[in-house]
């Protein structure tokens, strides 16, 4: 197994993040650093990755585990390169989010919560993402895809498949 270590560039960013907080309060940087870790280490947080983050922030591993398991954006199991997060709460539901989920499930041949065998897609339903006026919507990586129709979903999936790259929240 490859050594778990951030790139020099990410390490510099981590140090910059830590400096935002008062001396001795470097634990505050935990969530921002976990985002970087998830993006850099294959889209999920394994125990060794979390231990590594603990060592950087000089906190106990348990302090990382308890945080990583609390927040819904952190994956504690491997996921596909594109995690399709479809909003399912009131306004999106009113505008047909269920149809979007069923359509994607049918198209990819997997159910919500599952990953395609080729490791390309994971389907996840999530709670309100603040896109209610442009419902239904899904988030993939850092991008919101709004006012979805089935055609739009099809185009999107084709595009993701042809680009074949991992999408992270930290993408620019």
């Amino acid at each position: 197994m490859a050594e778990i270590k951030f790139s020099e560039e990410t390490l510099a960013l981590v140090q910059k993040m830590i400096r935002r907080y008062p001396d001795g309060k470097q634990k505050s940087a935990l969530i921002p650093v976990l985002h970087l870790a998830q993006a850099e280490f294959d889209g999920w947080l394994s125990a060794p990755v979390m231990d590594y983050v603990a060592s950087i922030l000089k906190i106990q591993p348990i302090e990382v585990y308890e945080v990583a398991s609390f927040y819904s954006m952190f994956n504690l199991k491997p996921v596909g390169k594109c995690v399709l997060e479809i909003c399912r709460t009131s306004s999106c539901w009113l505008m047909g989010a269920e149809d979007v989920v069923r359509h994607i499930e049918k198209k990819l041949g997997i159910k919500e919560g599952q990953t395609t065998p080729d490791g390309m897609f994971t389907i996840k339903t999530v709670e309100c993402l603040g896109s209610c006026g442009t419902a239904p919507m899904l988030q993939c990586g850092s991008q919101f895809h709004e006012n979805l129709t089935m055609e739009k979903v099809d185009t999107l999936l084709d595009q993701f498949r042809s680009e074949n790259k991992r999408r992270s929240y930290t993408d620019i």
Partner: protein
Amino acid sequence: MTQKILLKSDHVPGIRNYDVYRSQGGYASVEKALKTMTPEALVEEVKKSGLRGRGGAGFPTGMKWSFLAKPPGVARYLVCNADESEPGTFKDRYLMERIPHLLIEGMITSSFALGARTSYIYIRGEYYYILRILEKAIEEAYANGWLGNNILGTDFSHDVYMHIGAGAYICGEETALLESLEGKRGNPRIKPPFPAVAGLYGCPTVVNNVETIAAVVPIVNDGGDAYAKIGIGKSTGTKLISASGHINKPGVYEIALGLPVEDFIYSDEYCGGIRNGKKLKAVVAGGSSVPILPADLILKTAAGEPRLMSYESLGDGGFATGTMLGSGGFIVMDEDTSIVKNLYTFTRFYHHESCGQCSPCREGTGWMEKIMHKILDGHGTLNDIDLLWDIQSKIEGKTICPLGEAAAWPVAAAIRHFRGEFEEYVKNPSSIKDIKHYYRVNNLEPVLS
């Protein structure tokens, strides 16, 4: 009654950039505050304005500021709550994405009033792309001397930092937000002590919503009295309303408080009426937590007065016949909507988002979701409706933070106003298949048989 104060420049091309924002009069409030006002005078202006917290609770902002403890030698913090996650609410996202400098300007001016050397903007993790927009705005503000040491040659120095969350509705509760900012799970704290005394890192802290902080800018520029003249009664100023659901024109609208609800729903200036010529069935007026109201009660109060978009008018009649302005998340449902199924999405939401600290909320939200699921599956009984009522009444008021109430109120209101619909589902399970659960988007192929 369109009155644009916060969003007056939202359609100016390039307003996201510093130069354009500055050319539109941006950062004038920082100049005015730092050069001509004392922090105390600024707090007084905000008190005079009557501004109330725009995150949902509606607590007077000036009063909240005046509670801030000021022990000598102890740091004070301003924390901006940009965790916007109340279902139906997307106004802060719009404001930050369109006019990021307005928030940064408000942060500097407000921090001057509070004597805060450092402030943080806690933004929900899903808005990572907006974090980048705000970080760029902060960089521009530093480059132009609005942040850093001795701003405008005065003694006031200030730094603003962004902080990202990671997906947790509960972090919109101010003490949970502070826990999260300290790198912990978002478990709300027991109060007292309030954040004004012991907040971030145990220091005196003010937590304000994005829209609240942005509103400080026009209040300083034009004076508290001018702001208080807008609106109606104790609902002063303007409010950003996030309109969604079965309407012709969903989006974010800035309104002067006091606008009749009927105008807001049907006027072409705002929602533009119900889609496809359908009739209005119900509205959730202030985000998922506030009680749903049927059409007749959202348009008129029980006394027959026109219902207005204001804290007082929406609250008229208490929860028996009224609701709340809340965060301004205005969800409109047409005649085909199943209130029962909509409530299921809400109960699922609160179960998912309960932090698990208090038993009534942790267990109660789960039971409510399960009972709703049972009803929707066609296995419900009339007793289940009473059981739902019983459970919600045992959550409300029995938890550390208001998520308990937020989970209980939608259940109570749906049963209060639409009990017949619940009974219909229970008595005639086959009707569930016939009822249109939601509106289909144009040209969607029906996938469900």
